[in-house]
């Protein structure tokens, strides 16, 4: 009986770990891309004629950060389903 409850605790803990991990990922990505957006909007406000270039750089930087975030989301998915 102790064996099965330890087993359930094991699989339950992995689910908790995966979901907390996913939440922390969202925190990190939100802060990071928010900072990029802030800088981009500020730069666009200072020099409205360069908006095109600033937009391009902003999109590239946020795609790179999202790549890392999805990297770690995949790890959380693997942990949750193992």
């Amino acid at each position, binding site marked *: 009986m102790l064996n099965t409850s330890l087993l359930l605790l094991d699989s339950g803990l992995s689910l908790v770990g995966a979901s907390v991990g996913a939440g922390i990922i969202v925190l990190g990505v939100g802060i990071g891309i928010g900072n990029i957006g802030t800088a981009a909007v500020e730069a666009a406000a200072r020099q409205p004629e360069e908006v095109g270039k600033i937009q*391009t750089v902003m999109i*590239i930087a946020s*795609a*790179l950060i999202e*790549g890392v975030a*999805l*990297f770690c*989301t*995949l790890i959380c998915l693997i942990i949750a389903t193992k």
Partner: protein
Amino acid sequence: MFKKNHKGYFRRLLFVFLFLVMPLNFANASDEDNGDFVMHHVVDSHTWHICTINDLHVTLHLPVVIYSENRGLDVFSSSQFFDKHHKKVYYNSYSLNSHDKVVSLDAGNIFYDFSITKNASCLFISIVILFFVFIKMAKQYNYNEKDIKMSNYYVPKGLNGFLEQMICFIKNDVAVPNIGEAKYIRFMPYLLTIFFFIWINNLMGLLPGWGNLTGSVSCALVLALFTFILTNINGNKNYWEHIFNMPGIPKPLLLIIIPIEIIGIFIKPLTLTIRLFANITAGHIILLSIINLIFIFKSPFAGLISVPFGTFMLCLKLLVAFLQAYIFTLLSAMYIGKAMEEHH
């Protein structure tokens, strides 16, 4: 020229919205495992399941091609793997295991699976579409040098015009700034191919009942490997020196820097792979989970949440489809350009 009729705007919007929610009344949840629904639409499979209408499974059974040392080439339809009651049976000592992969009954049988699965058929269909569109377009630009006058130039319209704009966009904003004016033209075919290939496969994955080609690890890995091979073949002396013998670093520190740089060579295609397939697959999983809500709650009122959210996620996925193609192409161009850079 056309006047917009703003009267009754809200009424029409409400009508369309209800019209979209109404078919949800006919959603029957089957007895199968609900967790399987999402994964089933995202992974590769030997059968192409289009829909299920009232116990009639409309599926296309794709051919299974297996080559083994003992038995030679085996080509048969994957319908041989299932009997009348849709249970798995053995055919010629081959069968599908629980992960939908082909296994052999006799343990010593080494075989290679060359089946045309759902992803492979999506690949062939998108290749045919790309060939048809682009070769037809390229033929319009073929004319003699002598015959060129101002009135002879081909001005593309419609689809050709849009694609020409995209090609010029890749050339001016992706290839030339990153690879340089002198050397970019060798790589234009490669960059254009991966850009349009990834874009059209991402877009077609959004169609209902289609497969998920760029969201599979194998496809993304092969595309990233192409970039990897191109970068390292075209690396000049500067590039390799930067990795193995970085200038301006004291000798003891080199022992730490060299392994990091070597890992860096392999990390770049890995991140390209994961960025592509994780973005596309994550979009599919989100949209499928939102739609699955309707089947879980078994009530049309779940549609009041599902339909707006689902529409928003679909628009986001449209943006992601283009963005991921652009980012893949841009990063490939950056890596190739960096490998061919001259010393400052």
